[in-house]
């Protein structure tokens, strides 16, 4: 699952949203790291719709303009849950390693082997 796909699914996890709402939510969720362009967003929406992970929830016309709201399907929620669990497991493993690294005693500094030592047999 790509980063864009993951964030779009996440943006739709709590409630149906329209295109602009998804863009804003993705930006917020990613702390401003992911800013989807409209072409990219619709590429992702097309793919998710084809995979039946999202569906059209409803259409509204506001000030003469069309807003389409999309929502997650059950399959979409399952895919997002699985991806979130996979990422959480990876993050947990990384944090454990980081903690172990901090707890480990400092290793003694080994002097670098020199060409002379290896070749001349001085060691």
């Amino acid at each position, binding site marked *: 699952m790509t980063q864009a796909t993951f964030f779009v699914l996440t943006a739709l996890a709590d409630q149906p949203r*329209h*295109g*602009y709402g998804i*863009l804003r939510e993705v930006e917020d969720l990613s702390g401003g790291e992911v800013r989807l*362009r*409209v*072409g*990219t*967003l*619709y*590429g992702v929406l*097309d*793919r998710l*719709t*084809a*995979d039946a992970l999202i569906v059209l929830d409803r259409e509204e016309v506001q000030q003469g*303009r*069309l*807003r*389409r709201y999309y929502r997650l399907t059950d399959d979409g929620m399952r895919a997002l849950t699985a991806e979130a669990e996979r990422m959480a497991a990876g993050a947990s493993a990384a944090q454990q390693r980081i903690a172990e690294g901090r707890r480990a005693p400092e290793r003694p500094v080994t002097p670098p082997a020199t060409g002379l030592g290896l070749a001349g047999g001085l060691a």
Partner: protein
Amino acid sequence: MTTLLESRYRMVLRLLPAYYRREREEEMVEIYLWDVDRETQDQSRPTLGEVASIAALALRTRLGAAGAPRPYDRLGAAVRLFALFAVLLQAASVVVDRVLGLTWAATHGPAQWDMYVSGFTARGPALAVAEVAVWALPLLWTVAYFALLHGRLRLARVSALLAALPTLWPFLAPLVSTWFPPSTAFTTTSALFSWLTALALCAAHHRDAPPASLPVGTPGLAFAACGVVMGASVVLLPLAADTVWAPATCFAVGALGWLLWRARRDDRSTACGAIALAVLGLLLLTVRVAALYPWLGTPVPALVLGGALVQAGILSLLVAVLAVVGGRDLAAAR
């Protein structure tokens, strides 16, 4: 009232196919104009990034994205097959060319070997690097071919683009060395062939497209068969200066075999194959003619000239037959 910015966005959205615009245009315009102050809309323009993202979406939707109407679906399938066949042809051609060249240089005495090596070293270290790159990079067509058939799309794309790069060298070399400008028609058509192949691969074999697969045979078998046909064609009729001979012969044999195989099938699911082969054949014919044309006024051996002329004739015939078959299959499939 429509603002200038809205008109500009609608202009950009015209890159998208009509079916997609009918479905999505209003929704997309709504997003574009959402947080733009109406007072400033006449002074704003779509950014380059926005245009690029719509262009990429347009390409993807035209080449058979999920849910696309049948004509776009067929177009996408044809471009994908074209890319696959063209990558296979170039991969086998480069490997055969390098193997035959090395074998010839290594088995015809020290003078021949020295001449082969001096092709890289005679012009100084800087140009030697360029010559080695021009010799080695096209071998990446093979990486692109196997990567494509094993679903490694990014590797396939990067390999194909790198493999196509050396076709630009003849245009650059006269600028940085004392080389003469290239024979324009042949160099241009060769570069066009390589770049069209690489671009077709990049555009049509995207993440949403079905995985690449050969209509017949396994990847290794198809590659080996192409190599054998190309090698045999050069051994039977050695044409040292004719780099088009082997791939064009292989295409002719492959296309003929495909037509016979297709004639035994009742369904018309192979329509895209005929179109893809017709386009590939047309490109090869163009390169064939471009390579042949400069020989017409020079004392080229009759065997070489005759062989190339016969090959051009066979290619023309095959392209015509494939185009007719493809057209009929498409009409029947509608």
